């Protein structure tokens, strides 16, 4: 399984005055679930694109399983680390949903006989079977997002980077994406979620890396970092509801499932009474 090591990474866009990322260092071990948090313009997407070789460091290095990204092609890295764009429409070009999934598999040279089998499997895992022959552009927003993730997960990368998965999604769609990502985490794959939706991040990721103006200002357990008022304020974030609830009640290990939460709360107060 894949390991990512970032060392003293500085990145500057060509012709830009300042660095978009400054002195970023961290390691991501296999199977970790990491949220990269920060406000717009903090450098989240720039960092993500450095992790999968779309951008190469100006200074410092990013190493995938010990190999510097400068010596690897984007395709080579993509085979190991999938990247899902924030806008699924930036990737759709095929006439049918199934061909959208086929694209990556062909690029990576999967044999034709296995491709059909994989497509079938992926469609059913992501709940997209009924749309198989449909035009990707005609799907709903949530379905588009799931197809985008499915078309990457098809070749079973060892890690997945998802950029802003919840933008423009309603509650039900968010829950669907949450389910999909949690399953990928439970398979032991590494999932890196770039988001400013702290509630969503808290429901998926163990670890958080918090960026502000191109610098890492926090790296550690997500729940610990996001209960630090000063840090949350500095990164223009918000404390997730679930953490506020834990702090106010003294309970730990709560999950964002309102049925369970409500019954836990009721139970606690019943107990207090007796």
């Amino acid at each position, binding site marked *: 399984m894949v390991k990512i090591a970032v060392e003293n990474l500085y990145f500057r866009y060509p012709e830009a005055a300042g660095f978009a990322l400054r002195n970023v260092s961290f390691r991501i071990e296999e199977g970790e679930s990491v949220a990269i948090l920060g406000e717009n313009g903090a450098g989240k997407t720039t960092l993500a*694109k450095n992790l*999968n070789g*779309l951008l190469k460091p100006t200074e410092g290095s990013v190493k995938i399983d010990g190999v510097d990204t400068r010596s690897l*092609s*984007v*395709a080579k890295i*993509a*085979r190991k680390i*999938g*990247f899902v*764009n924030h*806008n699924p*429409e*930036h*990737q*759709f*070009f095929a006439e049918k949903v199934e061909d959208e999934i086929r*694209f*990556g598999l062909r*690029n*990576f040279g999967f044999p034709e006989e296995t491709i059909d089998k994989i497509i079938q499997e992926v469609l059913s895992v992501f709940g997209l079977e009924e749309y198989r022959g449909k035009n990707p*552009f005609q799907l709903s927003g949530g379905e588009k997002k799931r197809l985008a993730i499915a*078309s*990457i997960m098809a*070749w079973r990368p060892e890690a997945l980077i998802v950029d802003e998965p919840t933008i423009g999604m309603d509650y039900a769609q968010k829950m669907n994406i949450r389910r999909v990502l949690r399953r990928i985490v439970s398979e032991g794959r590494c999932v890196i979620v770039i988001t400013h939706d702290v509630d969503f991040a808290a429901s998926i990721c163990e670890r958080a890396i918090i960026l502000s103006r191109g610098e890492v200002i926090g790296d550690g357990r997500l729940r610990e970092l996001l209960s630090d008022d000063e840090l949350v304020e500095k990164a223009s974030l918000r404390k997730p509801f679930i953490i506020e609830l834990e702090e106010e009640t003294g309970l730990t290990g709560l999950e964002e499932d309102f049925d369970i939460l409500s019954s836990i709360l009721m139970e606690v107060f019943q107990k207090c009474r007796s």
Partner: protein
Amino acid sequence: MSFLRAFKYRRKDTVVHRLDPRSKFLLSVVLMMVSIMFADIRVLLVLISGQLILLFLAKSLGEWFSSLRGLVFFFAVIFITQLLFGGTFYTGIVLSLRLVALSSSMSWFFLSSTPEDIGRAMSVAGLPIELTFSFTMAIRFIPVIYDEFQSIYDTQRSRGLELEKGGFRDRIRNLMPILIPLLVGTIRRTYEIADAMEVRAFGASPKRTTYKPLKLKSGDYIVCIASAILVVSALALKMVYGVE
């Protein structure tokens, strides 16, 4: 193409930036004419120093200098062709200076006039609003569409697309995953822009007014008179004194 930087408008508050685009355009055309008319090094040098003063007034000397580096390639081409095809070192210098003079006349105009001012000058010149507006909007949305292209390109590369792979036909086919999303996105964008324009009453009245009507100020008259003097003296130099 770093020398293109000398043509990109930058917002600054200078005497030159405040001039009316029409008078600036007039002077810029006159300067171009003069630089083509003469092959005399002295005249060209005087012309270039004059342009340097204009660029200095526009606080844009920095951009001009950095664009010179981009011109080095063209100088080299000029000298090589001159030496190969019977010219002299002297003619090489003359042609290079002429190139500098020509490009500075244009860059002075473009550095200091907003695309909008240019559009406005176009509509004063009688071109229809639809045309002038398309011109400014095209320039406004180039960076936006470029960003979209970059995002699409990055996405498809992360799905294993390799543009350089395969023969000619493969390469053409490889462009489809980039062109199709870009086309779809741009068409959608066009609709959205049209909606946004319509709800702001675009096309409601045939006699649209302008908030900042172009008005010639005293500075503009000076520029116009200077252009006229320049034309007269250039003609005089050429015809009466016979300067080459």
